[in-house]
């Protein structure tokens, strides 16, 4: 057998490698260099010194503290939910199952807008209470408090825990529990001696995931938190955009990157022990309807919590978008498309919808090209260093959006890559996140194709190119489509990186929502609601397409 030193397919690794080098590692290196020039009150300040400064120690402490508290609160609410999800059959469970993915995929700015619509100073609950009790001031003053964004974090991560722990739970409990019962264990003993120990990997891994999400949470805290509540992400943004202290922002970015990598490394290590993923649900459940009164009450209480936590903010968002002082109105939607004097934009805000669609399409194309290129190489056997390449490609997923956005503005502003005013900047940044997603969708599909199929095609006379076209592509069409929808959705909702690089005259929808929400006045608030509702609709449609594309598992 002849074996060539490097198969032809390995040249397909080149485009994704160059892309990562230019738009990921290069900015990272710049951040590293820049952080060495940081000064604080005229004193040089390396990241190590930063840790000694009490201000920044407080920022780091607050970041950890809020993430831990968010995780704890999420689990307090979601564990009982996971139990009923795993154990009981009830009406509407299928709807709940489908709908429970919605909060998780909503763009952060939409979530922030929805919570403002529900509980903000001019939100629905306050408006109703003021009318009902004839009050002069809103009775619920939760805006700019820690409680407000903690609530939004719980909203975000509740369904994640529900799905991961719930699915895991439904897979282990039945027979192990029965075996324990037959050995004389009471239901209580079964829970503490068997179920809980078996659930530990799922709980640990989902808790770490929730912690990571909350640790790098940016849009939610920026929009719902108060001035004193600064996490590392928000502080990077403040230093870079408001104070223009780039070296300081770089130092903080470096710290954030180190924490992110550390947390991700931990997550991957834990994940090896419990091979679970958020979308994997291929195991049958043994469920039954609740029988005793206690069970029914418990189920009902959980469903009420789910409704209040997950549904009411989104309903409030839609309601607020259609309500002005005089009741039902489409005013906020209509004004999105007219050029208003005194508006926060130079162009009609509706333009942001077109911008977002354009950027999302460009991102999808770029991410698909890079993804197909990378997976074509990675799925063929006998290419060395595949594991390393895979890790490199997935690295951007372990990097916070804010540090990537910051990396872009300090790197791509001078030759050879002066992209300051280029429309390409946003699709490039979005592709950095979308392209690893595409790889994650495609690689398993490509690897599941038996290599014998390609050999059979070759023996029948197909050239490598035609094998790819006639064998690989048709068998992975569905995965390609899933990856495309993912890339599109990621781009539509991305806020962290975009907030650094969006030009004033070409805002994306999340950036527009952020600007509306940062300004006072009913009109700005209403338009934020309208724009958020549209973005939510687009996201949900994207997700419905995904559900259709993912084969139903029986």
């Amino acid at each position, binding site marked *: 057998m002849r074996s060539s030193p490097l198969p032809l397919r390995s040249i397909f690794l080149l485009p994704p490698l160059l892309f990562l080098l230019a738009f990921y590692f290069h900015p990272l290196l710049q951040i590293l260099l820049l952080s060495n020039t940081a000064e604080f009150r005229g004193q040089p300040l390396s990241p190590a010194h930063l840790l000694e400064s009490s201000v920044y120690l407080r920022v780091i402490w607050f970041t950890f503290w809020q993430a831990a508290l968010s995780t704890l609160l999420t689990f307090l609410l979601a564990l009982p939910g996971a139990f009923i999800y795993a154990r009981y059959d009830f009406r509407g469970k299928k709807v709940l199952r489908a709908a429970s993915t919605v909060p998780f995929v909503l763009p952060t700015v939409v979530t922030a807008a929805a919570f403002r619509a529900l509980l903000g100073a001019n939100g629905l609950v306050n408006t109703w209470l003021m009318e009902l009790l004839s009050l002069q001031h809103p009775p619920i003053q939760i805006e700019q408090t820690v409680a407000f964004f903690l609530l939004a974090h719980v909203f975000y991560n509740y369904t994640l825990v529900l799905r991961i722990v719930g699915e895991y739970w439904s897979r282990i409990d039945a027979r192990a529990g029965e075996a324990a*019962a037959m050995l004389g264990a009471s239901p209580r003993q079964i829970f503490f001696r068997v179920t809980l120990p078996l659930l530990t990997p799922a709980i640990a891994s989902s808790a770490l995931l929730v912690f990571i999400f909350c640790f790098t949470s940016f849009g939610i805290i920026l929009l719902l938190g108060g001035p004193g509540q600064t996490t590392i992400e928000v502080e990077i943004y403040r230093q870079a955009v408001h104070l223009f202290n780039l070296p300081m922002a770089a130092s903080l970015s470096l710290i954030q990157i180190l924490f992110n990598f550390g947390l991700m490394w931990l997550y991957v290590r834990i994940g090896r022990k419990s091979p679970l993923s958020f979308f994997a649900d291929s195991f049958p459940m043994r469920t039954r309807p609740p029988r005793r009164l206690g069970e029914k009450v418990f189920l009902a209480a959980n469903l009420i919590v789910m409704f209040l936590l997950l549904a009411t903010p989104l309903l409030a968002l839609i309601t607020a978008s259609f309500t002005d002082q005089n009741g039902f109105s489409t005013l906020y939607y209509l004004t999105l498309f007219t050029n208003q004097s005194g508006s926060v934009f130079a162009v009609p805000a509706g333009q942001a919808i077109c911008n977002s669609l354009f950027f999302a399409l460009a991102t999808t194309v770029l991410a698909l090209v890079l993804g197909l290129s990378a997976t074509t190489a990675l799925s063929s056997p006998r290419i060395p260093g595949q594991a390393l390449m895979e890790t490199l490609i997935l690295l951007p997923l372990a990097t916070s959006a804010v540090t990537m956005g910051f990396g872009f503005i300090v790197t791509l502003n001078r030759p050879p890559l002066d992209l300051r005013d280029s429309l390409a900047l946003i699709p490039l940044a979005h592709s950095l996140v979308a392209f690893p997603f595409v790889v994650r969708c495609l690689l398993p599909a490509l690897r599941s194709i038996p290599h014998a199929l390609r050999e059979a095609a070759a023996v029948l006379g197909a050239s490598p190119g035609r094998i790819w076209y006639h064998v690989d592509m048709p068998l992975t069409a569905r995965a390609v489509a899933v990856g495309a929808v993912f890339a599109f959705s990621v781009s539509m909702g991305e806020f962290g990186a975009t907030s650094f690089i969006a030009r004033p005259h070409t805002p994306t929808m999340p950036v527009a929502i952020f600007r509306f929400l940062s300004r006072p006045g009913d009109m700005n608030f209403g338009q934020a609601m309208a724009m958020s509702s549209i973005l939510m609709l687009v996201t949900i449609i994207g997700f419905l397409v995904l559900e259709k594309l993912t084969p139903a598992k029986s």
Partner: protein
Amino acid sequence: MAPLEIQDVSLATKEEILLAGISLTIGEGEILALLGPSGAGKTTLLRLVAGLEQPDRGRILFHGQDISGTPPHQRSFGMMFQEYTLFPHRDVAANIAFGLEMQKMERHRRDKRISEVLELVGLHGFDRRTVDSLSGGERQRVALARCLAPRPHLLLLDEPLASLDLQLRERLANEIRAILKRMAITAIFVTHDQSEAFAVADRIAILHEGRLEQCATPEEIYRCPASSVVASFLGFRNLLPPDTDDIQELLAVKDAWPAHIRAAAGNQEAMLLIRPDAATLTGQSPQGPDAIILDGVVERRRFQGRFYQLTIAVKSHRLIFDMPPEPLPPGPGEAITFRLDPAAIALLSS
């Protein structure tokens, strides 16, 4: 008083009847096999006895006491499952210790008991092994040891060997019987494999579509299947309706047919069973006056190792027999004259 009495137990879902009026009694120290095809209700019946399910109707008595209201963990029954119910977060010894911990047994007595049962199932020294490091056969031995350790009053085994390969299954079936007999334990053993049931059980209860078809010793079941359902489940293929003309002709010609079978001629309900081991070549055995001799043509002869399987056309019927390889039976197309053993012919209710 029998340790376990199942009295007229029924269970149904909205879609189908799972168990229809099952009554069974199990004697002290007896091993009863529940045998039947999948979906027959064997496992459901076992889970009712365990208390993991509740019957719609009927009672289950343990030493004369109705145990319907007793939850599974207070019944002191042991149960061995088909596969994968060892606790993955505990090692071998800790798995076996579980039931003993539930009994609050002191540590040193517990450790002693663990080595006793490990010795019993032939896994001496496996204490600290993790569950994943065990082979399928070792896992099931540990599962058995875990059930036996708390000295259950009744042992329930739900297809414990189904996930193992054939050789191992045969060996473990024999070992399980030996261990249960040594401990004089009363047990119910669910299986869909008749040879496994024959190897393990004192008595066999055959279930079909939620009904009890027959409950008897293996010998009785083999010799006299109670119904055509039982006969076809045991793999018997020579089942003839005795009311057809040519069977009547067969019966009439041969005075040698047993009287009760001749009497059944014309009975619409009955079925005639001729077991595969009923036929011998006429040259082989002395022919008495009461011998049943039949003539036919061999359609197919298949070598099966210990015997030849012959398909023989007798008038319009096709009968299948196992015949010894020596002397060589006639081949396809050749005429054959053979003798039927009257003891290998049974009359079944349909």
